[in-house]
């Protein structure tokens, strides 16, 4: 028993010092850090662009080893909100030292959590990420405008929907040997450039367009070692 306690104690000590993994989402545009509501800093498709709102859900966070086995899981949902810098950093605690070879997460809220009633915390429906007239979470919300010769051209992408065949939640898999400090780059330029020009600039309900845009989000996430 005594030995057991000592072992636990040692392990705790060991882990207090070592076993916290931080995950930070860093959003960039034109290769620079993104600031909300900043005019004159960024251009996309040769138009100046201002981003006023970026929020998205991440869930089912997994750290995996070189055999792709899950070695650490956080099954709760986190709302990443660029207007709240503290929300862009997450922590995973581990009891032991892990050898990590990749990071997996869901971008958006699973269908089961979309149909199971009222939640609090990051899934609270008052956080602007829940449609009131139709049940369901907005997985990814991006709002802003382009300044063009003919005035501002607004865009609003509220991407979500959990019903087949228009389910929008995406699994993001990033593989690379990583340290305890995991930095995920979110490259908005990639997304904005990949949106087909013929699509409406306001997509605010589930359906074909929301699904298409959600799939374009997968490649904008990448891992960076720091």
């Amino acid at each position: 028993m005594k030995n057991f306690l000592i072992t636990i104690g040692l392990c705790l000590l060991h882990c207090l010092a070592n076993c916290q993994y931080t995950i930070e989402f860093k959003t960039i545009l034109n290769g620079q850090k993104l600031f909300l509501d900043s005019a004159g800093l960024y251009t996309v498709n040769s138009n100046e662009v201002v981003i006023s709102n970026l929020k998205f859900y991440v869930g089912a966070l997994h750290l995996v080893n070189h055999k792709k086995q899950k070695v650490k899981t956080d099954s709760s949902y986190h709302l990443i909100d660029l207007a709240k810098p503290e929300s862009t950093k997450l922590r995973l605690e581990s009891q032991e030292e892990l050898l990590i070879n990749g990071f997996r997460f869901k971008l958006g809220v699973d269908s089961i959590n979309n149909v199971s009633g009222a939640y609090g915390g990051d899934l609270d429906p008052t956080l602007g990420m829940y449609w009131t007239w139709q049940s369901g979470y907005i997985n990814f919300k991006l709002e802003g405008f382009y300044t063009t010769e003919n005035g501002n051209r607004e865009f609003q992408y509220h991407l979500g929907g959990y019903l087949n065949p228009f389910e929008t939640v995406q699994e993001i898999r990033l593989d690379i040997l990583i340290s305890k400090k995991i930095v995920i780059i979110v490259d908005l330029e990639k997304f904005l450039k990949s949106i087909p020009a013929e699509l409406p600039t306001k997509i605010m309900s589930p359906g074909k367009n929301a699904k298409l845009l959600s799939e374009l989000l997968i490649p904008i996430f990448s891992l960076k070692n720091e």
Partner: protein
Amino acid sequence: MNRWILILMPSIFLFGFGAAELSQTRIEIRYPSNWPKPNYDFEKKPLYKNRVELGRKLFYDPVLSGNGMVSCASCHLSFTAFTHVDHALSHGINDSIGTRNAPVLINLAWNKLFMWDGAVNNIEVQALAPISHASEMGNDLITLLPKLNEHDTYPALFKTAFGEEKIASKQLLLALAQFQLTLVSANSKYDKVKAGVLKFTEQEANGYKLFQQNCNGCHKEPLFTTTEFENNGLQPDANLRDSGRYQVTRLSKDLFKFKVPTLRNIQYSFPYMHDGRYNNLNEVLNHYRADQELNIINHQNKPVIEITEHQKVDLIAFLLTLSDREFLFNPDYGFPRN
């Protein structure tokens, strides 16, 4: 018979939000043994007396609306099976008119989806729709929650019900849901006949046969709905342009499908259909009759029945056996007096 059974042994449970220990009285809804199991998961989220009573108070309280004038009960009146009688399209804040007829609130625990098009997937999140709808209660939770938190009575009531004084959306929504889940109608003449206590008249018995032949496929016993979405061949209204279930699923097979409404207490829930286009059951049956003009979009879907004027009277006599006065006048469902 239909009132809540209070399980008198209070159960102690650990409350998920704040882990405060609460002693609560559980309530269970009662229904005939031949009914299917409710769709709502009462094992996971049991009903508690405090929460149901709090939900009832909220249901009748216009504090939920933007101008403090409209309550849930404004459109869902207990004496008419919780629908808005006489209003084809519901009336909300500042006399604005909605786009649909307020449905009855009956046996909601068996519903899979809510609203005429199934846009809402769980009763716990349903209230978000009317509270935030500009032409219903014209409010939003960001404005409402601080108001409730500063209210004279609500913080204490939420504390007894949920163990926490701070009112957040989850508790508000759960309380409203808990009250509505107790709205069980299972004591009509039809139910008493099924239980062997009463007998149908000859006319009602004829009507019942006609019902089983023509209507039961969609308005399925004993709930009188399959709770699925069907197209019953109504001519789409050119002004409302309501495409029903399609609006949610975006699948062409769902165009002009609406949730099959229960026919329980149908005597009281006029006007009928999602847009309240028919004022009485006679008009409804005329719609279902073969000799009615068929519209082009929908006629292949229309359930066409061949009945004589005489049989129509019998069928209506049967439909009236679905009235449950004990439900309509249940003191547990009415305006809270205390």
